[in-house]
């Protein structure tokens, strides 16, 4: 039996490892995707004051602290049984919208986009943001940097600090904004909308305008029919900050819709012997293995699935793209809503539609007369909820749930987090397996493009190993090792 290992070159950060085991016929037997274990998160949190948790948990990740901060503070609202004033909720969502714009922008131009803009078969050294600039022009590099900069300024203004903001407090927000600040935010939001539309145009021209790329998106390699999860507002529209978690099946029928508080009634976690990371699945269906379809408990929570669970978008410009997205990708309208799209590479397109709706929502909130209200805090005065506090948001990489339990003094006794990437662990494993199956035929390895085709399968999820493992990794170089039955290394493919 041949054993193929995709491994980082060195023991550098993050060392995720992909192992492919071939069966006797030379086909793909099993594919294991492992992330290294991090120890002691629960012990680190237990015994601390509950109000420290949002800031501590936001330290888990240098990239998406805003998501952890808000999920954490919503868990505290619940734990302390306090309702933030409307202006505080709006400030939180405004802050979060600015974060979404930077995060989705960065992913598209620096990480996901280069596969399409530079090309999936281009050398790895060119498949980066520099390659994008070479292809599209220097101006796009300037625009990406300006976009990040203006939104970082807003995050700093609202959150108190640029990195690891502290503005969120149980019961509200630490400060209100004045008219002058509101005007700055409004101007930034307008630029964000232009930029998001411009980004969608690039996607149209370069990706949708190229038959080879469209074929790749529609190819079987990156097709998975799993259930979709995402947060929706009262009208079943995409919302990143608040709402109910909705799950639709592979045909678009609603399976469940629940307040984040009830997550444990709907989501169970599967333990596999080969990894310490758990696989969440839908309790109502049960764990049926790493399989597609309505009978499987596997679901995904990504930009693509957030669109799939929504009946429509909450903002007008994004709605136009939403319609185009589903009609272009062959979806039909059933009972007034589009059937889900399951082409995983379409996640990149969905992410850009989310970028646009985040920008539009940011403008709506900046124009809201209540946004400058000085009433941004309800001081918690109730008792500590005995059954714990639960809060969730849609992190860019999937539904993020924080669950804190504390004693009557507010000292933490238990912590549970289900992060975006964890939701997708089963789906990522399945995507990797499918990519491997297409690239390994009768024991023969199609070396050309193997690394990148497999990487594309997990890059579309933009997995955050820091969050999944509660670690902080950096770049992850990969190595594919092919071993014969005796374990001898017969072939090595390297990408650094």
């Amino acid at each position, binding site marked *: 039996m041949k054993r193929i290992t995709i491994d980082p070159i060195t023991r550098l*950060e993050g060392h995720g490892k992909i192992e492919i085991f071939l069966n006797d016929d030379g086909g793909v037997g099993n594919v294991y995707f492992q992330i290294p274990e991090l120890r002691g998160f629960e012990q680190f949190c237990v015994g601390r004051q509950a109000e420290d948790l949002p800031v501590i948990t936001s330290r888990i990740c240098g990239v998406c602290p805003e998501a952890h901060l808000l999920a954490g503070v919503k868990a505290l609202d619940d734990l302390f049984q306090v309702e933030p004033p409307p202006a505080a909720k709006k400030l939180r969502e405004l802050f979060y919208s600015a974060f979404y714009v930077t995060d989705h922008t960065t992913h598209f131009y620096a*990480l996901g986009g280069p596969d399409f803009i530079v090309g999936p078969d281009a050398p790895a050294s060119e498949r980066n943001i520099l390659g994008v*600039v070479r292809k599209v022009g220097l101006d796009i590099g300037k625009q990406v940097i300006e976009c990040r900069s203006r939104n970082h300024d807003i995050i700093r203004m609202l959150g108190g600090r640029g990195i690891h903001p502290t503005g969120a407090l149980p019961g509200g927000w630490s400060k209100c904004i004045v008219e002058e600040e509101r005007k700055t935010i409004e101007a930034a939001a307008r630029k964000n909308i232009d930029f998001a539309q411009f980004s969608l145009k690039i996607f149209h021209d370069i990706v949708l305008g190229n038959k080879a790329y469209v074929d790749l998106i529609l190819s079987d390699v990156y097709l998975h029919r799993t259930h979709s999860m995402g947060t929706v507002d009262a009208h079943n529209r995409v919302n990143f900050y608040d709402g109910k978690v909705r799950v639709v099946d592979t045909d678009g029928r609603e399976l469940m819709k629940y307040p984040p508080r009830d997550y444990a009634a709907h989501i169970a976690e599967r333990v596999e012997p080969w990894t310490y990371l758990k696989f969440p699945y839908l309790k109502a269906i049960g764990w049926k293995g790493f399989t597609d379809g309505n009978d499987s408990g596997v679901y995904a929570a990504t930009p693509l699935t957030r669109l799939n669970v929504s009946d429509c978008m909450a903002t007008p410009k994004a709605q136009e793209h939403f319609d185009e997205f589903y009609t272009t990708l062959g979806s039909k309208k059933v009972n007034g809503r589009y059937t889900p799209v399951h082409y995983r590479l379409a996640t990149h397109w969905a992410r850009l539609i989310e970028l646009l709706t985040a920008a539009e929502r940011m403008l709506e909130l900046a124009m809201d007369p209540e946004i400058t209200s000085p009433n941004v805090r309800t001081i918690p005065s109730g008792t500590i909820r005995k059954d714990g506090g639960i809060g969730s948001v849609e992190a860019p990489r999937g539904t993020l749930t924080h669950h804190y339990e504390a004693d009557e003094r507010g000292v933490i006794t238990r912590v549970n987090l289900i992060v975006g990437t964890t939701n997708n662990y089963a789906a990522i494993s399945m995507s990797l397996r499918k990519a491997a199956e297409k690239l390994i035929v009768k024991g023969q390895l199609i070396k050309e493009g193997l690394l990148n085709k497999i990487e594309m399968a997990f890059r579309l999820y933009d997995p955050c190993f820091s969050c999944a493992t509660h670690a902080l990794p*950096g770049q992850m170089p990969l190595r594919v090792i092919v071993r014969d039955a005796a374990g001898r290394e017969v072939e090595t493919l390297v990408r650094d």
Partner: protein
Amino acid sequence: MKTIVVGMGNPVLTDDGVGMEVARQVRQAGNSDSDAEVVELCAGGLRIMEAVAGYDRAILVDAMTTGNWVPGTVRRLRMEEARLTRNGSCIHDTGLVEALEIGRLAGVRVPDDVRIVGIEVEDATTFGETLTAAVAAAVPEAVACVLELMRAKGGDHDEHRRVLLQLRN
């Protein structure tokens, strides 16, 4: 010469916090001869480029988990060794060299002179706020190394330029 010292890492992941600890001690040891700014940063890639924008010289301090050296080893790294440190690159955007280059191309004034001080660590996979003994013992050497780099007049820009040239070709 306007200098910035960037202490990188995760302060709640045991030894991964060493870069920040060195930065804090450099700040305390700072004297009037130096106009260096000292900051802490939790994510690499484009975030570093944005942090060092506007400075003539940047000194990055970060943990390494290469396994090539004993824990507590302090190394001055060349630009092409940037990926040896834990937090210089960002898995969600780009490597350090690429990040500086995209900034430069886009008209951001990024330093010509970028130095990296890496400290090999023992444990960066357990939650904790205390450095292990070997790494704690290496902090004074790393601080001295950063202070020496800060005192150096002018910079050896050739190395960075050479790396960038390679990248462009």
